[in-house]
């Protein structure tokens, strides 16, 4: 099937999912015109809306790119959430505790974020390739554990003395070390994300390792006979996934958030998996899908301001999209 056809096959289920949701909301008595207006204004046309779309596309994109490597290697690493949190933890620790000048502290903080993500993912990868521990369960558990670790760090060693009560958070990072403001993204951040996309594309499509990874995922037996180090390649896929997710966490704390907070972005790792699938497991596709879901996320935040739709309605929409997204509505047409 040609590219246009593939694109249509990827977009159509989303269209149907959205339409189904709108119908459901209309039946439940909500004003879907205001919902649609809210979504458009929140994602595209409102003041600073597109900035918000990009702000949410950024972590989705990075986690999805990481997930892509594992998916290609045939590993279902759903630990992007936890890996991102650990990345944020690593970055924030360096940014708060590192006394050196900015030009050293900044790269160190980014590297620390990537390293923490890598270790968190690498641990799951190690258990998988070495002991065949099911990666779905292990990464799920590691997500829970990462939440608790962040909770400990933000109420214990790196607790912000000024914040009390309901919130657990580290202090704000020195503004010299910030990569962007609280309202979204900055040119620096965009350039860094662009570099990350380029790196992911080069590794996935133009490196020996990228091709081998794909081969290992599709035909592990053939890869073995060709002498590819199957287990090492799979492990490397985990390391890559963790690095990218860790970078997402680093960008979150050094960029928009400016600190590490318990309970921030709790479901982004799940959405990122959907982004990878919607993006047809291709780097350019993932970029487009990330912007789409980033827009949806921005719209979700804006929507309650203009519409009565409860926040659970948006959860339905997300679930509906995931349910529909891999469905082959065009199967019969494709066979012909």
């Amino acid at each position, binding site marked *: 099937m040609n590219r246009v056809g593939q694109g249509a096959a990827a977009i159509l289920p989303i269209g149907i999912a959205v339409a189904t949701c709108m119908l459901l909301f209309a039946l439940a008595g909500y004003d879907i015109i205001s919902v649609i207006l809210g979504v458009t204004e929140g994602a595209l046309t409102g003041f600073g809306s597109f900035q918000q779309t990009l702000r949410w596309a950024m972590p989705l994109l990075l986690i999805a790119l990481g997930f892509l490597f594992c998916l290609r290697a045939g590993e279902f690493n759903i630990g992007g959430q936890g890996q991102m949190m650990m990345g944020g933890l690593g970055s924030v620790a360096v940014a708060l505790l590192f006394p050196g000048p900015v030009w050293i502290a900044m790269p160190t903080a980014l590297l620390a974020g990537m390293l923490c993500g890598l270790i968190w993912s690498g641990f799951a990868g190690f258990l998988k390739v070495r002991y065949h521990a099911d990666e779905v369960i292990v990464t799920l558990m590691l997500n829970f554990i990462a939440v608790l670790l962040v909770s400990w760090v933000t109420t214990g060693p790196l607790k912000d003395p000024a914040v009390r009560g309901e919130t657990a958070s580290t202090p704000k990072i020195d503004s010299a070390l910030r990569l962007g403001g609280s309202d979204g993204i900055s040119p620096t951040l965009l350039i860094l994300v662009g570099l990350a996309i380029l790196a992911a594309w*080069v590794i996935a499509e*133009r*490196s*020996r*390792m990228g*091709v*081998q990874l*794909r*081969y290992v995922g*599709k*035909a592990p*037996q*053939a*890869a*073995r*006979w*060709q*002498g*590819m*180090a199957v287990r090492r390649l799979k492990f490397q896929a985990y390391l890559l996934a963790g690095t990218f997710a860790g970078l997402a966490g680093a960008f979150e704390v050094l960029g928009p958030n400016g600190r590490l907070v318990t309970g921030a972005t709790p479901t982004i790792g799940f959405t990122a998996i959907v982004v990878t699938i919607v993006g047809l497991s291709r780097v350019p596709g993932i970029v487009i899908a990330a912007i789409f879901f980033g827009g949806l996320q921005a719209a979700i935040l804006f929507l309650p301001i203009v519409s009565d739709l409860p926040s659970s309605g948006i959860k339905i929409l997300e679930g509906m999209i995931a349910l529909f997204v891999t469905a082959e509505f065009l199967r019969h047409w494709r066979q012909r």
Partner: protein
Amino acid sequence: MRPTAVRCDGITVQFGQVRALDNVSLAFPVGQIHAVLGQNGAGKSTMAGVLSGILRPARGSVEICGRKIQSGQSAAARAAGLDIVHQRFSLPPSFRVAEALEFAAARKMGGLVYSLRRIERRWRERLDAVGITVDLRSRLASLPVETRQSIEILRALANDARVLILDEPTALLSPTAIDKLFRQLRELRDQGVTPIVILHKLKEVLAVADTVAILRQGQLVLPPTPKDTLTTSRISTLMVGAVSVATRCATPTKDMPAADLCRLDGIATRSRGSEPGLHDIDLTLGQGEILGVAGIEGNGQRALAETIAGLEAPLAGRLTLAGSDVTERGTAARRVMGLRMVPFDRMTEGLSLTSPLWENVQSWVAERFRTGPWPLISIARMQESTRAILDRFGVSYRTTTQRGDTLSGGNLQRVILGRELAGTLKVLLAAQPTRGLDFAATRFVWQELHRVRDTGAGIILISSDLDELFEISDRILVMRGGRVVGTFTPPYSARTVGSAMVGAAE
């Protein structure tokens, strides 16, 4: 005139652009063993699929024992009395014998819940009746191939099949097992069952069939005809068309210096499932030598291949490749030293069917692509070299980006050979390189093996086809139970090699 067991009229099957069967009409009379003969891709398996109702033809009708069946319905074909034993076993390998038979039986034990003891009693009788001794609680995967095939045939007969189609039944069997199978088929014929055997080996057809039908490129070139009225050359000509048929690749063995290219000293491996491990294997391969490894499938050949390939670490012993000890080194390192491999199963071990051809043809670990520390690749250059290889090995393809599964079996094997033989090599390990290939493709493989041998490389050829081994090997080892039980040099005798394989006393 005998009554007709199976008749089909104007069957046409289309797979995409390819017409797998083109307006085929034929009738098989009752009470004879019929052979359907043809090369790969001639449409034999498609024919079997249509007759057994698994495939729905674009046009045409099928009649079994006088009953017209709804096309595309395997249950209807079964009810009409036709059953099929596929080349690939149809009973789930993870099932226990009794469970598997009960699962596939048309008439189940009554009641919603069965008792294991009752179904075991039921099948025990059936198995005893045809002389299969097997533990009903053992899992199919753990049984020898012959036993599994017998169970598959029993399964079909238990459904009261009047017509029994066997698709390539000899592919996995040893010569003795083939003889036994043919005896069994004759008994069945005498009991009134009509066996239809799909084969591609002329010798076996002549051994068992009463009539022969031949397909070529989807067309019926010979309707079922009594064997006695046909000559070997006539059959060959009909099978391959106008091309002249040579049965031998006449390449004389050259005298080469006897330097050891590959050497196994006292290699032992652990056993895996029903497959025995290797016991104290000593083996040397000289320059310019084709060393055949014979044996009934499942007697350690896989362990031998995987040990040489570096996929299985031996428990004991030493393995030398071109003079250096590689026992501790991995597959990649061995490839760099000049080892090349054609694995057993080309669909899963040889290639990735869902990857584009250029990814399959590039050898990702061999030295010619180790272009320094730079880890990036140029796709244009890779595709160019892929085209060169594919063209040289006569693969018919459209682009280097088409997926592996768009090619036929013979073409896939050419792709593998292209990848493995394109550079310089010292040792080639070829496991079942011609299994399932038609005559032309087989001949191509043999030619390539000879060419490689003539460059001074050594070849270890693992095959369950004695004819092939006799044809091209300079020396033959026979494996049984994970040991080397005999070494033979030309002229070979099928009787002595065969008895070494089954362990019969001389």
